[in-house]
């Protein structure tokens, strides 16, 4: 019993003091401020430079009405959202993003699973997958348009080619980097075949897979924007809007649409970062001392 008592005491000592509750709201407010002020400062800096450029009347562009000040953008954005085609365009583009990314996910997982399990296949296509990633997606469009014409399918084709390799690579990396010690532990436990995958390899590869998904999103979103600009399709989409405003030399509207594109990209990326953070937190990979 003396041993038990000592062991319990040691456990309690090593478990550390309980986290103090109470000032949770004020702590969250402080964290929010620490996180947001650098971003706010960066935005202010960009707006300031823009305003200076506007005031400088470089090449007489301000006087001719080609360049507008930053103050015109928000009202324009609001106006486009309320009265223009912007909402419709966002809907169309997001729908393509969801379909394209969804297809990439399915195809990427199938390829990743096959390549990680079948060694000859890995030797054959492993490096091709990485090679595909370095290929600029815009270079696929001539081929896509020849194959599918100026259609939705051409855009989806390029989106999938752009993002599926990242998904596949994330999956392969995850399987490859399953710690050997965990594999040994799993085998001693008697995990074999599908059970080994389900209980050990798939959960162990989750962090790398999510990293691959995040990268795939960035590629998908870029490819989609390139596609909507290059493939002439009727109907409203963010790319079509950009084209229209470019032809009308409408500086403010172009910037407004660009801001929408940027914000959508950042929001989705943020969701993946959140998922990544949640996993790392669960696994105990975050060091509270570093404040990550």
């Amino acid at each position: 019993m003396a041993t038990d008592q000592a062991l319990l005491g040691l456990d309690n000592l090593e478990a550390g003091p309980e986290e103090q509750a109470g000032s949770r709201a004020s702590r969250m407010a402080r964290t929010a401020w620490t996180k947001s002020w650098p971003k706010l400062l960066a935005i202010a800096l960009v707006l300031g430079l823009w305003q200076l450029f506007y005031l400088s009347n470089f090449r007489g562009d301000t006087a001719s009405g080609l360049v507008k000040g930053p103050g015109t953008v928000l009202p324009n954005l609001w106006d486009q959202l309320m009265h223009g085609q912007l909402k419709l365009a966002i809907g169309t583009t997001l729908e393509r993003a969801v379909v394209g990314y969804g297809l990439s996910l399915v195809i990427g997982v199938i390829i990743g699973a096959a390549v990680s399990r079948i060694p000859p296949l890995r030797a054959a296509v492993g490096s091709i997958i990485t090679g595909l990633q370095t290929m600029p997606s815009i270079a696929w469009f001539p081929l896509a348009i020849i194959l599918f014409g100026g259609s939705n399918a051409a855009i989806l084709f390029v989106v999938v080619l752009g993002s599926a390799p990242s998904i596949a690579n994330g999956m392969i990396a995850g399987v490859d980097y399953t710690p050997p010690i965990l594999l040994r532990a799993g085998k001693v436990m008697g995990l074999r075949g599908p059970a080994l995958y389900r209980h050990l390899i798939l959960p162990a590869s989750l962090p790398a897979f999510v990293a691959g998904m995040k990268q795939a999103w960035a590629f998908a979103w870029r490819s989609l924007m390139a596609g909507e600009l290059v493939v002439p399709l009727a109907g409203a989409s963010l790319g079509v809007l950009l084209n229209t405003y470019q032809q009308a030399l409408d500086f403010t509207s172009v910037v407004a649409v660009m801001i929408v594109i940027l914000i959508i990209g950042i929001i989705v990326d943020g969701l993946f970062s959140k998922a990544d953070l949640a996993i790392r937190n669960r696994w105990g990979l975050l060091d509270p001392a570093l404040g990550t």
Partner: protein
Amino acid sequence: MRVSDQQVTPPVHAQGASARGAAEATANGMKPADAVSLIDVSKAYSTGRSQLLALDKVSFAVRDGEFVCIIGASGCGKSTLLNVVAGLDQPTSGSVSTAGRRVGLMFQEPALFPWLTAGRNIDLALRARGVPKAERQEKVAELLQTVRLTGFGDKRPHELSGGMRQRVALARALAQDADVLLMDEPFGALDAMTRDLLHDELERICSERTLTVLFVTHNVREAARLGDRVIVLSSRPGRVIGEYLVPRSGPRRIDSPQVAGIAATLTDRLREEMGRHGN
């Protein structure tokens, strides 16, 4: 310092020792079966052009319920030996038998799955050997109680201390319903105080469950503290170069003179072996 032969039997060759052990058992009128037996087990690894002999004709047996420690300096193939007994690795020649007993393995690292809680880690081991769901919850609670971690089942591995994690790993190994527990320096990464307490715990658990243990360590005191018998392996290649019986007379402590005496004998034998490589 040398201890008297009364406390420690002089080194004998492996085969001699098993023969003598068997003779003793017969004399006592009981015959515990061998839980683990190795006969002339060799294991060679090919590294590029050259061959590395990790184990060279290692023979010994562990009887049911016996606690055998294996010590040796670096490169004595301790981990290879356990892998071979666990069936994770095949010997190049010779034969290994665990006579149908279930074997559990514990490593120096706890090797817990970081995405599962302590309880779920134990639960997975039960599930892997097909324990029905209805029984698992109760068994997990029982195993947590066995390693004195009741109330910590919902914690994730990273929320536990090193000693606690190693106890969860022990509970997981016990969940495999192993008759034979193979332990590869399981307490090597822990601080001395925690290690002492875990020695007591391990001793208690072994006596409660009549486990057979093959315990690899490079710590001579640990070997003297825990083992019924200590086997000394040589380095590169691993060979059995000595075998010491440790008489059990009541509870042992790592700082008792008896343990210190045996540890000194083992240290001398190991230094002699290391000196051989110094020439």
